[in-house]
C-alpha cells in the first residue's frame, strides 16, 4: 500500500499546468533532502507529450503524461541502491547527496524520467513533491490540474481506477509502476461517404471495418454528416466495406499501423443508372 498517481487521458485538456507547476515548485527552490533545485530549463520531471492524430478534416490531439513511475521494482534503485530509495509511502527518491556523480542512474530509467544536472553533478527526477506530502499536501502538479486528470492518493482509495487502468509501457510490467493510466487512446479509422453525382453525403450508409490481421469486424451507420468514426481500434490493416441501398458497394484498404486514419471521402455510385 502507499501513494499512487492516476492519469486519465480522457480528462486531459493539454494545458501543461502540471508541467509548469513542477517548474514553479522545483526551480530555484531547494527541497532537500528530497530534491535539490531543478535547472531552469532542459529537465521535465513532469511533462505532457502531444501527438497530432489523423488527417484533415478528421484530426484530434492526444496528450499524455510522462513522469517518474515510482516503480515498486525500480530499475534506478537496482542500479544504485545506496543513492536511490523508496519511501514507506511508495515514492521513489534520489538522494541528492548520495547520488552525486552517479550518472549511471540517469541511464537506468527506461522511462527517460531521470535527468542529469551538470551544475550540481547529480541525477534528478520527480520526488512526488515529498516535501509537500509530508506537510499534508498533494504534489503541486495534482493541485493545479483543472480537470482532476492527475490524481494522487492512497492505493486503496483508487481500487476501481487501478482495475480499469493500463500501463503506459505494458512491456515494463515487471517494474510495477505506480502511475496508472485510464482511457489511453488507441487508433481511429474514419471517413465520410458521399454521392458525388448528387453532391450529397450519404446518411445511414453501412460501413464495415474488417481488421485484416485479426478478422475482427466492426459495423457502423454513417451519421448526419455522412461520417463514420471507428474509435479505440487497434494498430492494424483494414478492409472497409461501404454499402448503401441503390449504390455499388465499395471496398477500401486502409492502415492504422503508423497513425490514425481518415480514409477521406468514399464516393459511392448508383448501381442502376437507369433509375
Amino acid at each position: 500500500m502507499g501513494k499512487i498517481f492516476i492519469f486519465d487521458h480522457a480528462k486531459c485538456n493539454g494545458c501543461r499546468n502540471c508541467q509548469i507547476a513542477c517548474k514553479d515548485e522545483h526551480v530555484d527552490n531547494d527541497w532537500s533532502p528530497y530534491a535539490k533545485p531543478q535547472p531552469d530549463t532542459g529537465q521535465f520531471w513532469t511533462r505532457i507529450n502531444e501527438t497530432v492524430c489523423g488527417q484533415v478534416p478528421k484530426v484530434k490531439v492526444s496528450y499524455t503524461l510522462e513522469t517518474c513511475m515510482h516503480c515498486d521494482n525500480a530499475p534506478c534503485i537496482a542500479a544504485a541502491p545506496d543513492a536511490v530509495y523508496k519511501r514507506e509511502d511508495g515514492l521513489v527518491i534520489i538522494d541528492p547527496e548520495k547520488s552525486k556523480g552517479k550518472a549511471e542512474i540517469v541511464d537506468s530509467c527506461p522511462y527517460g524520467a531521470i535527468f542529469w544536472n551538470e551544475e550540481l553533478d547529480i541525477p534528478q527526477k520527480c520526488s512526488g513533491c515529498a516535501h509537500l506530502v509530508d506537510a499534508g499536501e498533494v504534489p503541486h502538479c495534482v493541485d493545479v490540474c483543472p480537470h482532476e486528470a492527475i490524481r494522487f492518493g492512497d492505493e486503496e482509495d483508487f481500487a476501481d481506477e487501478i482495475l480499469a487502468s493500463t500501463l503506459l509501457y505494458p512491456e515494463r510490467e515487471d517494474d510495477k509502476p505506480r502511475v496508472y493510466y485510464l482511457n489511453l487512446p488507441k487508433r481511429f479509422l474514419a471517413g465520410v461517404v458521399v454521392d458525388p453525382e448528387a453532391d450529397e453525403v450519404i446518411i445511414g450508409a453501412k460501413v464495415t471495418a474488417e481488421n485484416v490481421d485479426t478478422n475482427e469486424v466492426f459495423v457502423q451507420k454513417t451519421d448526419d454528416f455522412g461520417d463514420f468514426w471507428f474509435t479505440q481500434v487497434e494498430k492494424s490493416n483494414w478492409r472497409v466495406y461501404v454499402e448503401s441501398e441503390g449504390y455499388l458497394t465499395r471496398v477500401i484498404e486502409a492502415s492504422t499501423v503508423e497513425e490514425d486514419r481518415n480514409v477521406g471521402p468514399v464516393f459511392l455510385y448508383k448501381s442502376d443508372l437507369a433509375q
Partner: protein
Amino acid sequence: MAQDVKGTPIVKGLGFNSFGIGTNACTVDIDKENDKILRIRPFHFDEHQTPEELNAWKLEARGSTFEPGFKTLISPLSLCYKKRVYSKNRIPYPLKRVDWDPNGDRNPQNRGTSGYERISWDEAAELVAAEIKRVHDLYGPASILCELDGHGETKFVHAPHGCQSRMFDLIGRYTLQTRQPDSWEGWYWGAKHIWGMDPLGQNSLQNNVIQDIARNGDAVLFWGCDVETTPLGWGGYLASRICFWFTELGIKQIHISPDVNYTNAVHGDYWIPVKPNTDAALQLAIAYTWIIEGTYDQEYLDTHAIGFENFKYYVLGGEDGIPKTPKWAEAICGVPSYVIKAFARYWAKHAVSIAHCNGGSFIRSCYAHEPARLEVALLGMQAVGKPGANQFKFIEWTLYGMDTVTPLPPSSEIPNCSPAYRGWFRSFPESFIPKTMIPQAIMNPPVTWYGHIGAGFPREDQFEGPYTFPLEGNERLHMIWSDTPCWETCWNGGNEMQEALRHESIEFIIVQHPWMENDCFFADVILPTNTKFETEDIGTDSDNGQWNVVYFEQQAIQPRLDSKSDMEAVGEVAKKLEKYGGIYENLYKRYMGGKTCEEYIEAGFLNTGAAEKMSFEEFKERQYYAFPTKENWEELPVGLSQFYNDPERYPLSTPSGKLEYYSTSLAEQFPDDKERGPIPKWIDEGAGHQERQYLARGRKYPFLLVSNHPRWRVHANLDDVTWFREMEEYVKVTGPDGYKYEPVWVHPQDAGMLGLETGDIVKIYNERGAVMGGVRVTERIRPGVVYQDHGSRVDSAVLGRGGLDRGGANNLIAPTPTTSEHAHGEVTSGFLVNVEKVDVFKLAEEYPEAFNRKYDPDCGLVADARIVKGE
C-alpha cells in the same frame, strides 16, 4: 528540512484586464524572510467562507450535475508568472537613447537601432518634465499622444495604463489613442446593426444559457472559438470544464475554423475547415439551403425581424445575379458543398447555439462586420432565443459590470474598486485618434473618421462625425508617452508604425514598462516599472465563473532592480514639473489625489459590499471576500427567451426593436458604402483590401494567414517565459542558428509543394514586409492556409515597410487599412502571404547587427542587448 515548505500565503490576481478590473485570483506562497516567491497555486474560496455562505451553485441536466469547485481553475499563463518577475528581459534601470540629445540632434531616424545608456531616475524625470514643458510651450498639450490602453497587469492603485493621463488631465490634457473595441471587431462594427446588443454587438443577454443548452441543446458551434486559449488572460479553465460536461451530456461540439484549435483538439466532435475570412460565403450558402428547402422559421421572422425579404432576394441572386449556392461558396471557402448542405440540414433540425471567445480570423479580418452580421442572420432564421438556441461567450462574464453577460449563475455583486484605481478612467479628451490610424495621424495628418472608436460606445456613435485630428488650430503630434509599447506586434501594419515612430515630427518618445521589448526600442527615455508582485494593491476577480471576489494583494517581494510602480514613475515626473510653476504648481500632490496607497486600497474596499461584512483591518487579515451566488438565479430569463416569446414587450436595441436584416440606419447614414451596406453580403475586395486567394493578388501571395490570440502568450505578454519556450515545436522552433523562431503551421500538402520540413526556417511575406518563423508540418491546419500566433516580440533586421523581422511578429505585415470604409477596426488575421524557406546563415551575413545581437535562447531577447553604457 528546516524551512517552512508551505510559506506565507497571499493573494494576487494574475490576469491582464488592466483597467481597474481584475481577474485570475491565485494564491501565492511567499518566503518573507528571504524575500522570495515560493509558488503560485489556486485560490480557495472556502478558506474563510462555507459553501452555504457562498450559496454554492450547481447545474443539473440529463441526470448529471456540474459544480464549479471551491478553488480557482488557473492556467499556465498565471502559473508561470515567477518567470515574468525574474525575467532577463526586465529593464534594469532608467535608460536614455545614446544619440538622442534634447539640446542638439535628436536623430529620430535612428530609433529602433540605437543603443541605450543608464541614467538616474532623477535625470530621467528631469528630462521628461523638460520635454513636456517645451512641447506645451511650442505646440500645445494636444501635441502629446498618450498610448495608455492594452493588456497590462491587473493593478488598481499602481495601474499599468494611464497614470500619465491622470497627470496630463491636470495640466492641459493630451491627445488620446483610443481604446478600440479590439477583439470584438466584427461584432462591434457589424452585428450591432442587425441586433443592437450594445456595448459590444455580441449577445448581452446570456443568463442561464449554459443550463439551457445542457437541458435543451443538441449542438454548440464553435465558430473560431478557442476555449482552451483565449480566456486564459482573463479567466481560467471553468470554460474548459463546461466543454467536458457538454461532451458527457452528448451535446455535439462543432468547430468551424481553418485550424484545429486547442479546443477542437480536445473537445471537438466535428470540424469544418473553412478558409480564413471566408465564413461569410459559408454562411450565405447555409441561408440559401434553408431558403430553398424551406427549413427556416418564417413565422418567427414575420414577428421578430424586418428586411428579411431584401436579404432573401440577395441570397437567391436577385440583386447581383449570383445565387449564393453551396457550390458558389465551396469555391471561396474551401468547404465541399455536400458538407455545407449536410451541416445546414443538421442545424435546421436541431437546437443549436453558437459560442465565442472573440478573436480569430472570423472576426478580425477585413469586412469582419459581414460574418458577424450573417451569424445573427442565421441565428434569427432558426428562431434565436428558443430553448437550446442562443449565442453565448466562454469569456468576459462580467464585462462592463453587466450582470446579464454571464451564461452561468451570477454572483450577488460585481465588486467595483474604482476609487482605488489610479489609471486612465475612460475620460475622453476632445483630441483623440483611433488606435488603428496612429501611423497616418503621425505621418500624414489630418486624418478623419466616424465615431469615438472606443470600446463601450453605443451603436449610434458609429455615425457621429466625421472627427478629425488634429483639431482645428492645433499642431500635429510631437511627443508620445506610452505605457503600452506593443503597437507593432498587436496592431494593423506594424511596419508602417515603425516608420511613424522614426518620423522627424516626433521629437520625443517616452516609454514606461517592466520589460525591454517591442516599441521600447523606439523610445528616447525608458522608465523601468515593476510587476504587481512588487507592490501592495487591491484586486477583484469577477471572470472566473465561480464566485466574484475582492482581495487584498500584499506585496510579495521588494521592487526588483531599479524599478518603480507605474503610478510612482509618473509621480517622479510630476515632482519635476512643479518647478515650472503656473499650471504645474503643486502637481505631485494633485496627481496623488490626496491619499496614500493604503488609503486608496481602503477606498476601493469601502466601495464594495465586502465593507458591509467586515472592517478594512479584517479584510487585510482574511485577504478576501467572495460574493455569494445571487439568490433565485434560476429564475433569471434564459438568454433571448423574452425576445423570443414577446418581441414587442422585450425589443432589441435596434431602431425597429427587431432583427434588422436590412439596417435602416446604415442605409441612411452611409448610403454609398459598398463594403458595409444595409444587407450583410459577401465582399470580394475594395479600395483598402485585396485579400482574396482567387483574385489577382492571391496569385502572388497564395496563402491566407491565420493569426489567433496566442496559446502561450496574452497578446504581447509572456513571450520571454523560459518554461514555455523550452517546449520545442509547440511554443518555439529552434533554428540551425540556435534562435528560437515563432512556429508556423503548414499542412503536409503545402509543405510538399514548398519543399518544407518541420524545423525549417521560413519567411512569411507580402509587399508590406516579411517575418520569420519555424515550420511545423501538421494536420492541424487546412491546406492553402498557414498559421502563426500573434504577439511574438519584434526583432527587426530591416525596419519599416518592406522590412524583415526575425521575431515572427506577423502584425508587422498585416494590412494598414481598417476593417472597411466606415469601420475602423484592425485587420490582423486572414490576410494574404507567401512562404519561402530561408538560409539563416546567409541572412546573418546580410544583417550582421540584428543577427548578432545578444540573445539568450531560453528567454529570447534580453534587456541588456541594447544597453551600451550600463552600471
